């Protein structure tokens, strides 16, 4: 075991820290609408122009070609610098679509899409879940019928984050109507400006409209947009999901430590309803310290997992464990800050920048449901880590 950073790792940290300190936007991200998507595109464009786009991407595709450990350093420095949150409208493009295309796309698909994703010109959304298939993706029903050089798509997708801002979608449809479960699915690049697509926003408990229902009425998509094989989309979908469950939340994992620090600083200034300073309340002190220990453990788990992945070239099955721990620690931290803030915690209009702690409290449910509910993560652990008898 060792904890040594190489000289190039340390150099990388210094460069990242210096660049972020000088370049992190001072302007707050707008709360909603196309102005927030434009803010994300502008930030991504700035990262791109200064050579910081695609931290997880190989160099040959325009990324930084960083090792897992250097990615950890990058996200730690992003959290320290309070850079714009990386889970924004560019997230699916950078963290799912791009890496999936790199693994399974054709040369034409890569040449067209990858530069647009890196520069922030193309935003993507995910079209996996459906109204009757949340975490159970094998029961998808949206249909793709082969018609000459096109696939004609009909049906509906659900929980599609940022569909209204997206240029493209990673769309999973059933191309073999006789097929069952995970067979007969196809992963297609869908141009969101195609005729026949109708987007209906779903207002969430966060008082925003970032998720949508998307309807497809005979949407024609060229067969050349298929990623992987027709009817062989499950393998591509698994590639996408392993990205999400592996390092997809790495930033949140590492950011937790910074957030506990901010909450502790806040406790040193906030007065509780009876006039005592929050930090003088022993229950608050103990909970803050316990969350700090959790944050350190999450960092240790992340470093262990990344070292293992760098060494073997294979992500381990620990993504589900980290996601469970991170989502529950995030929720506990929000609840604690809520206790400290008292009545002010209840003032909220959906603006994340203006009310970060209340937003994150409400977000904690989204976080523990999206990308596979916490219950599904427990099932994964029971199956893949503990090898318990199958429940299904």
């Amino acid at each position: 075991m060792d904890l040594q950073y190489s000289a190039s790792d340390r150099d990388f940290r210094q460069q990242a820290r210096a660049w972020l300190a000088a370049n992190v936007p001072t302007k707050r991200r707008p709360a909603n609408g196309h102005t927030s998507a434009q803010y994300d595109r502008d930030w991504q464009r700035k990262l791109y122009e200064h050579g910081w786009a695609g931290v997880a991407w190989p160099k040959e595709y325009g990324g930084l070609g960083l090792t897992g450990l250097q990615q950890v350093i990058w996200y730690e420095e992003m959290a320290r610098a309070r850079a714009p949150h990386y889970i924004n409208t560019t997230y699916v493009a950078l963290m799912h679509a791009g890496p999936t295309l790199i693994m399974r796309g054709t040369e034409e698909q890569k040449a067209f899409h990858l530069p647009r994703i890196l520069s922030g010109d193309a935003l993507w959304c995910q079209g996996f879940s459906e109204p009757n298939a949340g975490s159970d993706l094998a029961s998808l029903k949206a249909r793709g019928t082969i018609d000459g050089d096109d696939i004609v798509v009909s049906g509906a997708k659900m929980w599609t984050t940022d569909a209204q801002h997206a240029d493209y979608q990673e769309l999973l449809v059933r191309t073999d109507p006789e097929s069952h479960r995970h067979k007969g699915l196809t992963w297609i690049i869908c141009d969101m400006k195609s005729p026949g697509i109708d987007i209906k926003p779903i207002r969430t408990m966060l008082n925003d409209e970032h998720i949508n229902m998307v309807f497809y009425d005979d949407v024609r998509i060229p067969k050349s947009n298929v990623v992987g094989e027709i009817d062989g989309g499950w393998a591509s979908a698994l590639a996408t999901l392993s990205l999400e469950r592996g390092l997809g939340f790495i930033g949140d994992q590492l950011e937790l430590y910074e957030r506990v620090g901010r909450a502790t600083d806040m406790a040193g200034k906030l007065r509780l309803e009876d006039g005592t300073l929050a930090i003088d309340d022993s229950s608050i002190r103990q909970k803050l310290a316990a969350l700090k220990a959790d944050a350190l453990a999450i960092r240790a788990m992340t470093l262990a997992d990344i070292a293992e992945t760098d060494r073997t070239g294979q992500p381990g099955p620990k993504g589900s464990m980290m996601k469970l721990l991170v989502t529950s620690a995030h929720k506990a931290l929000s609840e604690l800050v809520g206790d400290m803030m008292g009545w002010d915690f209840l003032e909220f209009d959906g603006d994340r920048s203006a009310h970060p702690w209340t937003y994150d409290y409400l977000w904690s449910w989204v976080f523990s449901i999206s990308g596979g509910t916490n219950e599904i993560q427990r099932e994964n652990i029971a199956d893949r880590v503990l090898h318990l008898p199958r429940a299904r």
Partner: protein
Amino acid sequence: MYLAPDGDELEIAQAAAGFLAEAMSIERLHGAACADMSADLRHSLGSMGWFALALPGHAGGSGLSAVEHALFFREVGRQCGPVDVLAQCLAATIVDDNALRSSIVSGDVGVALAVGDGTGLRIFGSENAAFMLQLGRDRSDLYTFKNSASEPRASLDPATSIRVSDRVPTVASSETGDRAWNLGQLGTAAMLVGIAEASLDQIVDYAKVRETFGKKIGSWQAVRHPCADMAVRLEAARAQLWFAATAMKEGRGDAGVHLDAAKYLANQAALANADTNIQLHGGIGVTDEHHAHLYLKHALVLARLFGGRREVLGRLLHAEVED
């Protein structure tokens, strides 16, 4: 950077597991007069060199690091090993006198662990011990020990006997600094991680064979999900244990902070996993013949040694870590 046991470290862990399963299997705790280290066990551990594990090479030790120390005590924890094993290892590291040190390392003399309890000393370990070791964050003292001066007390934990003493003991050897304390904290955290692991392994094995309502209980979500939570708690505590051990080995300035976090997480993981193990076993889980309660009772002792919950959290709150 690599944060998991590797190469020689794995071999040492396997050797320790094999040896301890023979020499002090948890089965012993179902027999009579089972607490603490017997003179035979002490000699057996000594002859294999386990008490010299954390001792530098120039002092006759194995020259291994905090990492191997943690790997060994995790295996000790899995068998609910006696607290005196730790006291014996730590005493070897603070003694300057060559003759005394070699008799500790060989197991010829025994060392119990002493902790201030507000009015006097609370002593954990064998009444045949010739010495007792009291550790603080800034100094460690080895005292000579007279049996007549202590009074036995009832002990919840079958693996550990307890005596109290209000006598001011005679110092045999002392050391300033936090080295021995840190090794003690790491060792107890490692034993607690071993208990958290053994508890999870026990219920997972049972869930694969025991059937209710016509199905293996491991296929019911009411069992699967608490087991998954046990695995997550364990993984967090174990990852932080490796981090703390490695930080100590490499002499990082923030090693103490990582040790406090490791101890807190190990306390929580061992107690919660021992609790869930009993619960998911159903009726058999509360019987004396089962191991499940042994893990819980031993964890209750270890969780209070080298930093209980309040103490470590109090230090952690404003502590700073390095990159």
